[in-house]
């Protein structure tokens, strides 16, 4: 008589109880967890139900998309023809309209390069050189040279000016910031103290006082026969201000490089100078790319301050447009448009920063 082997037969797992899956469970877990959660959710829903439809109504339903100021006043919603009418001025300021294609080409170059960078199609030294050339290309296209009609700097304005100030500011201040950081980290006591004094002085005061300094005080510092125009003075001020902040970011990167790197390099007979330039700095920069992007966003936001010293950047043009007598009463539209533009640019930069953080060296370690 053979004994039938008993084979263990597990009962199949029963499905999760219906109270733990599905929409109802999600609602219970995430919105109505207890009486406190329920109160918060209902209060927020009430606020959103009052404000969001009003906002949508103003922006789209009751808004006017074609027509003039009177049509807008009749409809009572947002007045988008106002923005359309002012679009050129907002983008270019009082730049000659017939030459608008030149900044246009510079903008396309910027967008293409940004896209190539974002998608990681272009990398290494080619990428760096391309970004270093871009501001010069933009300046030549906007200002005019090589037989193109020259456009005086007092006519530059609008979003073009904001982006130009930020672009030149970032690209010049990064190498300057690296030098300051190296001076602060590796320099001799005298160099070190000079770098610290410069960095802390600029980081300790508001940008406005530095802009005032550039527009009122810098002419006093220079020899009487040397005259630099206002835009260039302000650009220099923004570069120096940004460099002080970049230096602190880069210093964080220098501190993150382990001592073994230096020791290995010196032991192999690489000179001090080459160790810093080819071993330390490239790694340090890779570490601090995300915070450097953060500084780029900050600098772009800070360009809005130049209206206080008399340049008409994007925000300045928005403010002017809001005061136009033929479109009186549509300030909100102007500021909402400005907010959308600033937000899209800053937010896409910060998304890129997060992307770099995901790809970067500190992410690989984890």
């Amino acid at each position: 008589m053979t004994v039938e082997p008993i084979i263990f037969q597990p009962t199949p797992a029963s499905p999760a109880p219906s109270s733990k899956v599905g929409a109802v469970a999600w609602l219970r877990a995430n919105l109505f967890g207890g009486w406190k959660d329920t109160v918060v959710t209902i209060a927020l829903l009430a606020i959103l139900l009052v404000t969001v439809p009003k906002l949508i109504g103003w922006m789209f339903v009751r808004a006017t998309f074609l027509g003039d100021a009177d049509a807008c006043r009749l409809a009572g919603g947002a007045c988008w023809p106002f923005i359309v009418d002012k679009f050129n001025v907002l983008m270019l300021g009082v730049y000659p309209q017939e030459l608008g294609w030149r900044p246009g080409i510079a903008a396309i170059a910027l967008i293409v390069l940004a896209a190539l960078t974002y998608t990681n199609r272009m990398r290494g030294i080619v990428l760096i050189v391309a970004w270093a050339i871009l501001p010069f290309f933009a300046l030549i296209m906007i200002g005019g040279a090589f037989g193109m009609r020259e456009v005086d700097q007092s006519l530059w304005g609008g979003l073009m000016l904001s982006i130009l100030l930020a672009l030149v500011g970032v690209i010049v201040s990064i190498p300057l910031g690296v030098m300051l950081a190296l001076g602060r980290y590796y320099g001799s006591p005298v160099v070190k103290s000079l770098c610290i004094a410069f960095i802390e002085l600029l980081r300790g005061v508001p940008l406005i006082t530095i802009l005032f300094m550039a527009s009122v005080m810098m002419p006093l510092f220079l020899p009487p026969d040397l005259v630099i125009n206002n835009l260039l003075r302000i650009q220099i001020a923004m570069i120096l201000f940004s460099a002080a902040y970049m230096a602190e970011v880069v210093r964080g990167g220098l501190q993150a490089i382990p001592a073994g790197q230096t020791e290995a390099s010196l032991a192999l007979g690489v000179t001090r100078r080459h160790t810093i330039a080819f071993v330390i700095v490239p790694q340090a920069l890779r570490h601090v790319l995300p915070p450097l992007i953060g500084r780029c966003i900050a600098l772009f936001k800070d360009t809005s301050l130049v209206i206080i010293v008399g340049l008409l950047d994007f925000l300045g043009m928005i403010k002017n447009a809001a005061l136009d007598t033929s479109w009186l009463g549509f300030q909100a539209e102007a500021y909402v448009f400005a907010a959308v533009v600033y937000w899209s640019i800053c937010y896409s930069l910060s998304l890129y920063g997060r992307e770099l953080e995901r790809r970067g060296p500190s992410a690989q370690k984890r």
Partner: protein
Amino acid sequence: MPMTKTRAKSGFALSNIGSVASQGVVLAIALFFVYLLFTNTQENLALRGIESGFAFLDKEAGLPIGDSLIAYTPMRSYGYAFLVGILNTLFVSVLAIILSTILGVFVGIARVSNNWLLAKVAAVYVETLRNLPLLLTLFFVYSVVLAALPHPREAIELLEGVYLSKRGFYLPRPLAEPGFWTFLIAALIAFALGLAFWRWAALHKVRTGKTLPGFWGGLGIFIVLTGLAYLITGRPVGSELPVYAGFNFKGGLAMKPEFASLLIGLVLYTAAYIGENVRSGIQSVEAGQIEAANALGVSNTVVTRKVLLPQALRVTIPATTNDYASLVKNSSLAVAIGYPDMVSIGGTIIGQNGQAVEIIAMWMAVYLTINLIISLGMNALNARVQHAER
């Protein structure tokens, strides 16, 4: 800590001590540069007929100031006008620091809340405010939000004596009546007693192991004694309500629209940053610690106070120090909407007499001092919450 040691060594291995001579050359170049700036400035000032030196501070200013904490007339000196500006800068900064900290803590907690809707609303708030220039937010509040409020005639009355209108906000002004000082002294004594009870309860716990409700007991002592003192001294705090008369409100505490927009803008902007610091602080505490404490039967309040907060603050405080310093610097944007802060008043003085060098030096001195005070205070706080390093 071994890491610090190796880092220091790495810096040392590469640092360029160099010869005394090469350092002397660098120093000489720097000094020559400063000398060049100095002589150029002297020459330029002479060319433009601008006096130099701080003698102008005693001269009559003749500039009107819309909003001042201390009594001011245009007959006062430039120095006094600048002092008004410093006080305005300090006043708006201190108020904004307090309010943005409160709002920022709420935003940070909301960001990590289990409530999906609350977390999303907080995220939208943070991402919106952080990606817009502060100046745009200020303009928006000043010329869109506050301008949409009604004329003082139809002002919105929030509570009794609290009015919102496009000319500003009006609040009741507290008035000291006879017996106020006695009451104030009594209240201070009550506060000291409450504090003493709290300390005693903590000591008692160390000695005997018995837990007394130290904080709530102390608070109770303070409230009950202060209330008694208030009644005994004959209710010495009155209030003056703002009253609509003619074209505007008279009496009460008035908050001008410029001040209100600057305060609202600074608070909304900085709270978004502080909220992020609070969020990263909370998220830096490992979930296992909270779960372990819960599993040991520690109550939620105690987990928050003894496990979550002490560790979260280590991450939050250093970042928040920077945000406070930025807030003080950002208050200089007042000049764009016409609130008379230090930069705005200084700018007007430069326009009047051209003494840019002196005014800019004064600005820098004041801002550097404020920043120094903030970092000293916050470093002291930070030292209390950081790990004792072995």
